[in-house]
Protein backbone atom coordinates (compact mmCIF):
# COMPACT_ATOMS: atom_id res chain seq x y z
CA UNK A 1 0.00 0.00 0.00
CA UNK A 2 1.25 3.43 -0.89
CA UNK A 3 0.94 6.61 1.11
CA UNK A 4 -2.64 7.92 1.25
CA UNK A 5 -3.23 10.91 -0.98
CA UNK A 6 -5.97 13.54 -0.73
CA UNK A 7 -7.74 15.87 -3.13
CA UNK A 8 -9.12 19.38 -2.79
CA UNK A 9 -12.56 17.78 -3.27
CA UNK A 10 -12.05 16.04 0.09
CA UNK A 11 -11.42 12.55 -1.20
CA UNK A 12 -8.75 10.13 -0.10
CA UNK A 13 -7.03 7.61 -2.33
CA UNK A 14 -4.72 4.69 -1.65
CA UNK A 15 -3.04 2.59 -4.32
CA UNK A 16 -2.38 -1.15 -4.28
CA UNK A 17 -0.57 -1.77 -7.54
CA UNK A 18 -2.79 -0.18 -10.15
CA UNK A 19 -5.96 -0.48 -8.08
CA UNK A 20 -7.00 2.65 -6.22
CA UNK A 21 -9.36 2.73 -3.25
CA UNK A 22 -11.36 5.96 -2.99
CA UNK A 23 -13.44 7.47 -0.21
CA UNK A 24 -14.35 10.81 1.30
CA UNK A 25 -12.28 12.29 4.11
CA UNK A 26 -13.27 12.34 7.77
CA UNK A 27 -13.39 16.12 7.45
CA UNK A 28 -15.89 15.94 4.58
CA UNK A 29 -17.98 13.33 6.39
CA UNK A 30 -18.10 15.52 9.48
CA UNK A 31 -19.13 18.58 7.46
CA UNK A 32 -21.93 16.66 5.72
CA UNK A 33 -23.43 15.32 8.91
CA UNK A 34 -24.70 11.79 9.22
CA UNK A 35 -24.76 10.03 5.90
CA UNK A 36 -28.13 8.44 5.16
CA UNK A 37 -27.73 7.53 1.49
CA UNK A 38 -24.89 6.55 -0.81
CA UNK A 39 -24.94 5.84 -4.50
CA UNK A 40 -21.85 4.19 -5.97
CA UNK A 41 -20.71 3.58 -9.54
CA UNK A 42 -21.51 0.27 -11.23
CA UNK A 43 -18.74 -2.30 -11.25
CA UNK A 44 -17.21 -2.43 -14.72
CA UNK A 45 -18.08 1.15 -15.61
CA UNK A 46 -15.43 3.50 -16.94
CA UNK A 47 -14.97 6.78 -15.13
CA UNK A 48 -13.42 9.99 -16.30
CA UNK A 49 -11.29 12.34 -14.22
CA UNK A 50 -13.33 15.10 -12.60
CA UNK A 51 -16.75 13.61 -13.39
CA UNK A 52 -19.23 12.82 -10.61
CA UNK A 53 -19.18 9.07 -9.97
CA UNK A 54 -20.77 8.74 -6.56
CA UNK A 55 -23.05 10.66 -4.23
CA UNK A 56 -23.39 10.66 -0.49
CA UNK A 57 -26.29 12.40 1.21
CA UNK A 58 -26.94 13.46 4.76
CA UNK A 59 -30.35 14.66 5.93
CA UNK A 60 -29.12 18.20 5.30
CA UNK A 61 -26.94 18.06 2.21
CA UNK A 62 -25.52 16.23 -0.75
CA UNK A 63 -21.87 15.45 -1.34
CA UNK A 64 -20.67 14.61 -4.84
CA UNK A 65 -17.68 12.35 -5.29
CA UNK A 66 -15.51 12.93 -8.35
CA UNK A 67 -13.36 10.40 -10.16
CA UNK A 68 -9.80 11.33 -9.19
CA UNK A 69 -8.32 9.70 -12.31
CA UNK A 70 -9.53 7.85 -15.42
CA UNK A 71 -10.16 4.20 -14.76
CA UNK A 72 -12.51 1.25 -14.52
CA UNK A 73 -14.55 0.49 -11.41
CA UNK A 74 -13.57 -2.94 -10.10
CA UNK A 75 -15.46 -2.91 -6.84
CA UNK A 76 -18.09 -0.83 -5.02
CA UNK A 77 -18.45 -1.02 -1.26
CA UNK A 78 -21.92 -2.54 -0.88
CA UNK A 79 -21.59 -2.29 2.90
CA UNK A 80 -21.95 1.51 2.73
CA UNK A 81 -24.96 1.24 0.43
CA UNK A 82 -26.66 -0.98 3.01
CA UNK A 83 -25.34 1.03 5.98
CA UNK A 84 -24.52 4.59 4.87
CA UNK A 85 -23.67 5.50 8.47
CA UNK A 86 -20.46 3.47 7.99
CA UNK A 87 -19.19 6.50 6.07
CA UNK A 88 -19.92 8.81 9.00
CA UNK A 89 -18.36 6.39 11.47
CA UNK A 90 -15.30 5.46 9.45
CA UNK A 91 -14.95 7.59 6.33
CA UNK A 92 -11.26 6.77 5.90
CA UNK A 93 -11.61 3.09 6.81
CA UNK A 94 -14.60 0.77 6.47
CA UNK A 95 -16.52 3.58 4.80
CA UNK A 96 -14.46 3.46 1.57
CA UNK A 97 -16.59 3.92 -1.53
CA UNK A 98 -15.15 2.20 -4.60
CA UNK A 99 -12.03 0.74 -6.23
CA UNK A 100 -10.67 1.81 -9.58
CA UNK A 101 -8.24 0.06 -11.85
CA UNK A 102 -6.04 2.64 -13.52
CA UNK A 103 -3.34 2.54 -16.20
CA UNK A 104 -0.64 3.88 -13.95
CA UNK A 105 -1.03 4.63 -10.24
CA UNK A 106 1.99 6.94 -10.30
CA UNK A 107 -0.36 9.74 -11.37
CA UNK A 108 -1.00 10.08 -7.63
CA UNK A 109 2.50 11.52 -7.32
CA UNK A 110 1.53 14.33 -9.68
CA UNK A 111 -0.23 17.62 -9.33
CA UNK A 112 -3.65 17.74 -7.67
CA UNK A 113 -2.90 15.00 -5.16
CA UNK A 114 -2.06 16.18 -1.68
CA UNK A 115 -0.07 14.63 1.12
CA UNK A 116 -1.74 14.42 4.52
CA UNK A 117 0.15 17.52 5.66
CA UNK A 118 -0.87 19.50 2.59
CA UNK A 119 -4.47 18.39 3.01
CA UNK A 120 -4.46 19.41 6.67
CA UNK A 121 -3.22 22.83 5.64
CA UNK A 122 -6.03 23.05 3.10
CA UNK A 123 -8.71 22.37 5.71
CA UNK A 124 -7.04 24.59 8.27
CA UNK A 125 -6.02 21.92 10.77
Amino acid at each position, binding site marked *: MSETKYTAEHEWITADGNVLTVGITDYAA*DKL*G*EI*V*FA*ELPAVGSSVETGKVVA*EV*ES*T*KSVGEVFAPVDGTVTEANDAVVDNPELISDSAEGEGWLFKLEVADASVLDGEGFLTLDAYKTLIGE
Partner: protein
Amino acid sequence: MTDNATTPPKFSPLHQVHVDAGASFTDFAGWQMPVRYSSELEEHHAVRNAAGLFDLSHMAEIIVTGPESAAFLDYALCGKISTVAIGQAKYSLLLNEEGGIIDDVIVYRTHEHRYGVVANAGNRFAAAGALASRAAEFDTTVVDESDPLALIAVQGPNSQAILEALPGLDLPQPVGELRYYWSELGTYDDGEILVARTGYTGEDGFELYILSRSAEKLWHELMRVGADHGLVPAGLACRDTLRLEAGMPLYGNELSPQIFPAQAGLGRVVSLKKESDFVGRAASEAGAPADARVLVALVSEGRRAGRSGYAVFAGAEDGDAEVGAVTSGALSPTLGYPIAMAYVDPQFSEVGTELFIDVRGKRIAATVTALPFYKRKA
Protein backbone atom coordinates in the same frame (compact mmCIF):
# COMPACT_ATOMS: atom_id res chain seq x y z
CA MET B 1 -28.96 38.86 3.30
CA THR B 2 -25.74 40.73 3.93
CA ASP B 3 -22.33 39.44 2.98
CA ASN B 4 -20.87 37.90 6.09
CA ALA B 5 -17.33 38.34 4.86
CA THR B 6 -17.56 41.92 6.06
CA THR B 7 -20.00 41.44 8.92
CA PRO B 8 -18.62 39.83 12.06
CA PRO B 9 -20.69 36.83 13.13
CA LYS B 10 -23.07 37.15 16.04
CA PHE B 11 -22.84 34.76 18.93
CA SER B 12 -25.51 33.44 21.25
CA PRO B 13 -25.08 34.09 24.98
CA LEU B 14 -24.74 30.29 25.12
CA HIS B 15 -21.95 30.07 22.55
CA GLN B 16 -19.27 28.92 24.96
CA VAL B 17 -21.61 26.24 26.33
CA HIS B 18 -21.99 24.84 22.81
CA VAL B 19 -18.25 24.99 22.15
CA ASP B 20 -17.66 23.08 25.39
CA ALA B 21 -20.28 20.52 24.33
CA GLY B 22 -18.40 19.89 21.10
CA ALA B 23 -21.02 21.35 18.79
CA SER B 24 -20.48 21.92 15.08
CA PHE B 25 -21.56 25.40 14.04
CA THR B 26 -23.26 26.86 11.03
CA ASP B 27 -23.99 30.37 9.90
CA PHE B 28 -27.66 31.12 10.31
CA ALA B 29 -28.71 34.63 9.32
CA GLY B 30 -25.36 35.95 10.45
CA TRP B 31 -25.33 33.96 13.69
CA GLN B 32 -22.94 31.16 14.54
CA MET B 33 -25.38 28.57 15.85
CA PRO B 34 -25.00 24.87 16.73
CA VAL B 35 -25.97 22.73 13.74
CA ARG B 36 -25.45 19.48 15.68
CA TYR B 37 -23.72 18.30 18.84
CA SER B 38 -22.93 14.74 17.82
CA SER B 39 -25.54 13.18 15.58
CA GLU B 40 -28.46 15.06 14.07
CA LEU B 41 -30.34 11.78 13.67
CA GLU B 42 -29.99 10.90 17.34
CA GLU B 43 -31.00 14.44 18.25
CA HIS B 44 -34.02 14.16 15.97
CA HIS B 45 -35.11 10.85 17.51
CA ALA B 46 -34.51 12.18 21.02
CA VAL B 47 -36.99 15.00 20.39
CA ARG B 48 -39.57 12.56 19.02
CA ASN B 49 -39.11 10.02 21.81
CA ALA B 50 -37.76 11.88 24.86
CA ALA B 51 -36.63 15.51 24.72
CA GLY B 52 -34.19 17.91 23.08
CA LEU B 53 -32.79 21.22 24.24
CA PHE B 54 -32.44 23.98 21.64
CA ASP B 55 -30.72 27.34 21.80
CA LEU B 56 -32.84 29.70 19.72
CA SER B 57 -31.34 32.93 20.99
CA HIS B 58 -30.93 34.14 17.41
CA MET B 59 -34.70 34.60 17.14
CA ALA B 60 -35.92 38.20 17.28
CA GLU B 61 -38.14 39.41 20.12
CA ILE B 62 -39.99 42.64 19.47
CA ILE B 63 -41.97 44.10 22.37
CA VAL B 64 -45.12 46.10 21.74
CA THR B 65 -46.55 48.19 24.59
CA GLY B 66 -49.14 50.93 25.08
CA PRO B 67 -52.91 51.35 25.25
CA GLU B 68 -53.46 50.90 21.49
CA SER B 69 -51.21 47.85 21.12
CA ALA B 70 -54.07 45.49 20.26
CA ALA B 71 -55.51 47.82 17.62
CA PHE B 72 -52.01 48.37 16.25
CA LEU B 73 -51.30 44.64 15.93
CA ASP B 74 -54.71 44.13 14.27
CA TYR B 75 -53.49 46.64 11.67
CA ALA B 76 -49.89 45.48 11.37
CA LEU B 77 -50.55 41.71 11.24
CA CYS B 78 -53.06 39.72 9.18
CA GLY B 79 -54.66 37.91 12.13
CA LYS B 80 -57.07 39.20 14.74
CA ILE B 81 -54.81 39.88 17.67
CA SER B 82 -57.26 41.94 19.74
CA THR B 83 -59.19 38.80 20.71
CA VAL B 84 -56.07 37.03 22.01
CA ALA B 85 -56.38 36.63 25.77
CA ILE B 86 -53.68 37.55 28.27
CA GLY B 87 -51.37 34.54 28.37
CA GLN B 88 -52.43 33.28 24.97
CA ALA B 89 -50.18 32.97 21.92
CA LYS B 90 -51.09 33.20 18.25
CA TYR B 91 -49.30 32.37 15.00
CA SER B 92 -49.58 35.24 12.54
CA LEU B 93 -48.07 36.84 9.45
CA LEU B 94 -46.63 40.21 8.63
CA LEU B 95 -47.81 40.98 5.09
CA ASN B 96 -46.68 43.59 2.62
CA GLU B 97 -49.16 45.80 0.71
CA GLU B 98 -49.13 43.27 -2.14
CA GLY B 99 -50.32 40.54 0.23
CA GLY B 100 -46.95 38.73 0.29
CA ILE B 101 -45.28 37.49 3.46
CA ILE B 102 -42.59 39.64 5.12
CA ASP B 103 -42.32 37.19 8.00
CA ASP B 104 -44.22 34.65 10.05
CA VAL B 105 -44.37 35.43 13.75
CA ILE B 106 -45.74 34.23 17.05
CA VAL B 107 -47.48 36.86 19.14
CA TYR B 108 -47.58 36.35 22.90
CA ARG B 109 -49.94 38.53 24.88
CA THR B 110 -48.27 38.86 28.27
CA HIS B 111 -50.23 41.78 29.78
CA GLU B 112 -53.30 43.90 29.10
CA HIS B 113 -51.23 46.31 26.99
CA ARG B 114 -48.05 44.36 26.27
CA TYR B 115 -47.27 41.83 23.55
CA GLY B 116 -44.14 39.99 22.48
CA VAL B 117 -43.76 39.41 18.74
CA VAL B 118 -41.20 36.72 17.89
CA ALA B 119 -39.77 36.97 14.39
CA ASN B 120 -37.19 34.99 12.42
CA ALA B 121 -33.55 35.95 12.95
CA GLY B 122 -33.04 36.70 9.27
CA ASN B 123 -36.04 39.01 9.27
CA ARG B 124 -35.29 40.80 12.51
CA PHE B 125 -34.82 44.23 10.98
CA ALA B 126 -37.45 43.80 8.27
CA ALA B 127 -40.02 42.78 10.88
CA ALA B 128 -39.05 45.35 13.51
CA GLY B 129 -38.87 48.04 10.84
CA ALA B 130 -42.29 47.19 9.38
CA LEU B 131 -43.85 47.10 12.84
CA ALA B 132 -42.28 50.42 13.85
CA SER B 133 -43.41 52.21 10.69
CA ARG B 134 -46.94 50.78 10.98
CA ALA B 135 -47.14 52.00 14.59
CA ALA B 136 -47.01 55.68 13.63
CA GLU B 137 -50.76 56.33 13.96
CA PHE B 138 -51.20 54.36 17.18
CA ASP B 139 -50.52 55.07 20.84
CA THR B 140 -48.05 52.21 21.06
CA THR B 141 -44.31 51.65 21.33
CA VAL B 142 -42.30 49.04 19.39
CA VAL B 143 -38.95 48.03 20.87
CA ASP B 144 -36.56 45.41 19.49
CA GLU B 145 -35.49 43.50 22.62
CA SER B 146 -33.67 40.73 20.76
CA ASP B 147 -30.23 41.51 22.13
CA PRO B 148 -30.87 41.26 25.88
CA LEU B 149 -33.04 38.14 25.55
CA ALA B 150 -32.14 34.49 25.16
CA LEU B 151 -34.51 31.75 24.01
CA ILE B 152 -34.17 28.14 25.07
CA ALA B 153 -36.64 25.51 23.87
CA VAL B 154 -37.32 22.17 25.51
CA GLN B 155 -39.12 19.97 22.98
CA GLY B 156 -40.35 16.41 23.12
CA PRO B 157 -42.75 14.20 25.07
CA ASN B 158 -40.70 14.47 28.29
CA SER B 159 -40.59 18.27 28.24
CA GLN B 160 -43.20 18.77 30.92
CA ALA B 161 -41.51 16.37 33.34
CA ILE B 162 -38.22 18.18 32.81
CA LEU B 163 -39.69 21.62 33.54
CA GLU B 164 -41.46 20.22 36.59
CA ALA B 165 -38.09 19.03 37.88
CA LEU B 166 -36.36 22.37 37.29
CA PRO B 167 -35.49 24.01 40.61
CA GLY B 168 -35.96 27.74 41.09
CA LEU B 169 -38.66 28.18 38.48
CA ASP B 170 -41.43 30.20 40.10
CA LEU B 171 -44.65 30.20 38.09
CA PRO B 172 -48.22 31.29 38.93
CA GLN B 173 -49.62 27.93 37.75
CA PRO B 174 -47.93 24.55 37.31
CA VAL B 175 -46.55 24.02 33.79
CA GLY B 176 -48.78 20.95 33.50
CA GLU B 177 -51.81 23.23 33.49
CA LEU B 178 -50.43 25.34 30.67
CA ARG B 179 -52.31 24.55 27.45
CA TYR B 180 -50.82 24.41 23.95
CA TYR B 181 -50.22 27.93 22.62
CA TRP B 182 -50.54 29.50 26.05
CA SER B 183 -47.81 31.05 28.17
CA GLU B 184 -47.16 32.38 31.64
CA LEU B 185 -44.75 34.88 33.13
CA GLY B 186 -42.71 33.75 36.10
CA THR B 187 -39.44 34.27 37.90
CA TYR B 188 -36.13 32.46 37.44
CA ASP B 189 -32.70 33.45 38.75
CA ASP B 190 -34.16 36.72 40.13
CA GLY B 191 -35.36 37.73 36.69
CA GLU B 192 -38.45 37.46 34.52
CA ILE B 193 -39.07 34.35 32.45
CA LEU B 194 -41.80 33.68 29.89
CA VAL B 195 -42.69 30.00 29.72
CA ALA B 196 -44.69 29.24 26.58
CA ARG B 197 -46.12 25.92 25.42
CA THR B 198 -45.09 26.48 21.82
CA GLY B 199 -42.53 25.04 19.44
CA TYR B 200 -41.44 24.15 15.94
CA THR B 201 -40.96 20.41 16.11
CA GLY B 202 -44.43 18.85 16.06
CA GLU B 203 -43.96 17.63 19.62
CA ASP B 204 -45.18 18.88 22.96
CA GLY B 205 -42.70 21.37 24.33
CA PHE B 206 -41.91 24.71 25.85
CA GLU B 207 -40.08 27.83 24.78
CA LEU B 208 -38.39 29.79 27.56
CA TYR B 209 -37.67 33.47 27.04
CA ILE B 210 -35.17 34.74 29.56
CA LEU B 211 -32.58 37.45 30.15
CA SER B 212 -29.27 36.54 28.51
CA ARG B 213 -27.46 36.68 31.84
CA SER B 214 -29.48 33.71 33.09
CA ALA B 215 -29.23 31.63 29.92
CA GLU B 216 -26.18 29.57 30.93
CA LYS B 217 -27.59 28.73 34.32
CA LEU B 218 -30.95 27.72 32.85
CA TRP B 219 -29.27 25.59 30.14
CA HIS B 220 -27.05 23.73 32.61
CA GLU B 221 -29.88 23.18 35.09
CA LEU B 222 -32.17 21.85 32.37
CA MET B 223 -29.43 19.48 31.16
CA ARG B 224 -28.87 18.32 34.74
CA VAL B 225 -32.52 17.61 35.61
CA GLY B 226 -33.19 16.42 32.06
CA ALA B 227 -30.58 13.67 32.24
CA ASP B 228 -33.13 11.31 33.81
CA HIS B 229 -35.59 12.10 31.03
CA GLY B 230 -33.39 11.49 28.01
CA LEU B 231 -32.77 15.18 27.31
CA VAL B 232 -30.00 15.90 24.80
CA PRO B 233 -28.80 19.19 23.31
CA ALA B 234 -30.21 19.50 19.80
CA GLY B 235 -28.96 21.59 16.89
CA LEU B 236 -30.49 23.38 13.95
CA ALA B 237 -30.03 20.37 11.63
CA CYS B 238 -32.60 18.30 13.49
CA ARG B 239 -34.80 21.34 14.04
CA ASP B 240 -35.17 21.54 10.27
CA THR B 241 -36.06 17.85 9.77
CA LEU B 242 -38.44 17.98 12.76
CA ARG B 243 -40.34 21.00 11.44
CA LEU B 244 -40.42 19.53 7.93
CA GLU B 245 -41.96 16.27 9.17
CA ALA B 246 -44.49 18.36 11.10
CA GLY B 247 -45.33 20.23 7.87
CA MET B 248 -44.35 23.62 9.26
CA PRO B 249 -43.18 26.22 6.74
CA LEU B 250 -39.75 27.83 7.00
CA TYR B 251 -39.28 31.43 6.00
CA GLY B 252 -36.95 31.62 3.01
CA ASN B 253 -37.98 28.14 1.86
CA GLU B 254 -41.79 28.05 1.86
CA LEU B 255 -42.51 31.71 2.69
CA SER B 256 -41.35 34.88 0.96
CA PRO B 257 -42.56 38.38 0.04
CA GLN B 258 -43.72 36.96 -3.32
CA ILE B 259 -45.86 34.23 -1.75
CA PHE B 260 -49.49 34.79 -0.71
CA PRO B 261 -50.51 33.03 2.52
CA ALA B 262 -53.17 31.08 0.62
CA GLN B 263 -50.50 29.58 -1.65
CA ALA B 264 -48.67 28.31 1.42
CA GLY B 265 -51.81 26.80 2.91
CA LEU B 266 -51.98 29.63 5.45
CA GLY B 267 -55.20 31.24 4.22
CA ARG B 268 -56.83 30.53 7.59
CA VAL B 269 -54.22 32.79 9.27
CA VAL B 270 -55.48 35.81 7.29
CA SER B 271 -58.53 37.18 9.05
CA LEU B 272 -60.73 38.71 6.38
CA LYS B 273 -63.57 38.66 8.93
CA LYS B 274 -61.69 41.24 10.97
CA GLU B 275 -63.65 44.54 10.74
CA SER B 276 -60.61 46.80 10.72
CA ASP B 277 -58.13 47.36 7.93
CA PHE B 278 -54.71 45.70 7.96
CA VAL B 279 -51.66 45.97 5.76
CA GLY B 280 -52.16 43.67 2.79
CA ARG B 281 -55.92 43.39 3.25
CA ALA B 282 -56.95 44.65 -0.21
CA ALA B 283 -54.46 42.35 -1.92
CA SER B 284 -55.56 39.44 0.29
CA GLU B 285 -59.21 40.00 -0.60
CA ALA B 286 -58.33 40.03 -4.30
CA GLY B 287 -56.39 36.82 -3.65
CA ALA B 288 -53.56 35.14 -5.48
CA PRO B 289 -53.93 34.66 -9.26
CA ALA B 290 -55.94 31.52 -10.13
CA ASP B 291 -52.85 29.88 -11.64
CA ALA B 292 -50.54 30.69 -8.72
CA ARG B 293 -48.56 27.68 -7.54
CA VAL B 294 -49.61 26.08 -4.26
CA LEU B 295 -47.64 24.30 -1.60
CA VAL B 296 -47.94 20.52 -1.56
CA ALA B 297 -46.44 17.67 0.40
CA LEU B 298 -44.63 14.98 -1.58
CA VAL B 299 -43.57 11.51 -0.49
CA SER B 300 -41.28 9.16 -2.40
CA GLU B 301 -39.92 5.67 -2.06
CA GLY B 302 -36.30 4.74 -1.56
CA ARG B 303 -33.86 6.97 0.27
CA ARG B 304 -33.09 9.73 -2.19
CA ALA B 305 -34.62 13.06 -1.23
CA GLY B 306 -35.63 16.03 -3.31
CA ARG B 307 -34.06 19.24 -2.06
CA SER B 308 -34.72 22.95 -2.16
CA GLY B 309 -34.68 24.20 -5.75
CA TYR B 310 -35.10 20.84 -7.48
CA ALA B 311 -37.60 20.96 -10.35
CA VAL B 312 -40.87 19.02 -10.22
CA PHE B 313 -42.23 17.47 -13.42
CA ALA B 314 -45.60 16.06 -14.45
CA GLY B 315 -43.99 12.93 -15.88
CA ALA B 316 -40.81 10.91 -16.10
CA GLU B 317 -40.02 11.67 -19.76
CA ASP B 318 -37.82 14.49 -21.00
CA GLY B 319 -40.70 16.21 -22.78
CA ASP B 320 -42.98 16.25 -19.74
CA ALA B 321 -43.89 19.64 -18.35
CA GLU B 322 -42.09 21.27 -15.45
CA VAL B 323 -44.88 22.03 -12.99
CA GLY B 324 -43.15 23.19 -9.83
CA ALA B 325 -40.12 23.25 -7.55
CA VAL B 326 -39.15 21.74 -4.22
CA THR B 327 -38.73 24.18 -1.31
CA SER B 328 -37.62 21.74 1.44
CA GLY B 329 -36.83 18.06 1.39
CA ALA B 330 -35.08 15.34 3.36
CA LEU B 331 -35.02 11.65 4.01
CA SER B 332 -37.42 11.69 6.96
CA PRO B 333 -35.62 10.32 10.03
CA THR B 334 -38.91 9.34 11.70
CA LEU B 335 -40.69 7.88 8.69
CA GLY B 336 -37.70 6.41 6.86
CA TYR B 337 -38.71 7.63 3.39
CA PRO B 338 -38.07 10.88 1.49
CA ILE B 339 -40.44 13.77 2.11
CA ALA B 340 -40.57 17.20 0.51
CA MET B 341 -42.60 20.35 0.27
CA ALA B 342 -42.94 21.94 -3.16
CA TYR B 343 -44.84 24.67 -4.97
CA VAL B 344 -46.69 23.21 -7.95
CA ASP B 345 -49.22 24.41 -10.51
CA PRO B 346 -52.66 24.13 -8.89
CA GLN B 347 -53.95 21.43 -11.26
CA PHE B 348 -51.21 19.11 -9.91
CA SER B 349 -51.88 19.76 -6.24
CA GLU B 350 -54.58 17.22 -5.49
CA VAL B 351 -53.72 14.50 -2.99
CA GLY B 352 -52.76 11.35 -4.86
CA THR B 353 -51.31 13.13 -7.92
CA GLU B 354 -48.19 11.37 -9.22
CA LEU B 355 -45.33 13.77 -9.91
CA PHE B 356 -41.58 13.48 -10.47
CA ILE B 357 -38.73 15.31 -8.77
CA ASP B 358 -35.58 15.85 -10.80
CA VAL B 359 -32.88 14.69 -8.39
CA ARG B 360 -29.70 15.76 -10.12
CA GLY B 361 -30.72 14.41 -13.50
CA LYS B 362 -32.83 11.45 -12.32
CA ARG B 363 -36.59 11.67 -12.05
CA ILE B 364 -37.81 10.26 -8.77
CA ALA B 365 -41.53 9.48 -8.49
CA ALA B 366 -43.30 11.48 -5.76
CA THR B 367 -46.94 11.39 -4.69
CA VAL B 368 -48.86 14.40 -3.41
CA THR B 369 -50.01 13.72 0.13
CA ALA B 370 -51.71 15.69 2.90
CA LEU B 371 -49.70 17.68 5.44
CA PRO B 372 -48.37 17.05 8.00
CA PHE B 373 -46.15 14.08 7.19
CA TYR B 374 -45.91 13.31 10.90
CA LYS B 375 -48.41 13.95 13.67
CA ARG B 376 -47.76 13.06 17.28
CA LYS B 377 -50.17 10.81 19.09
CA ALA B 378 -52.53 12.86 21.22
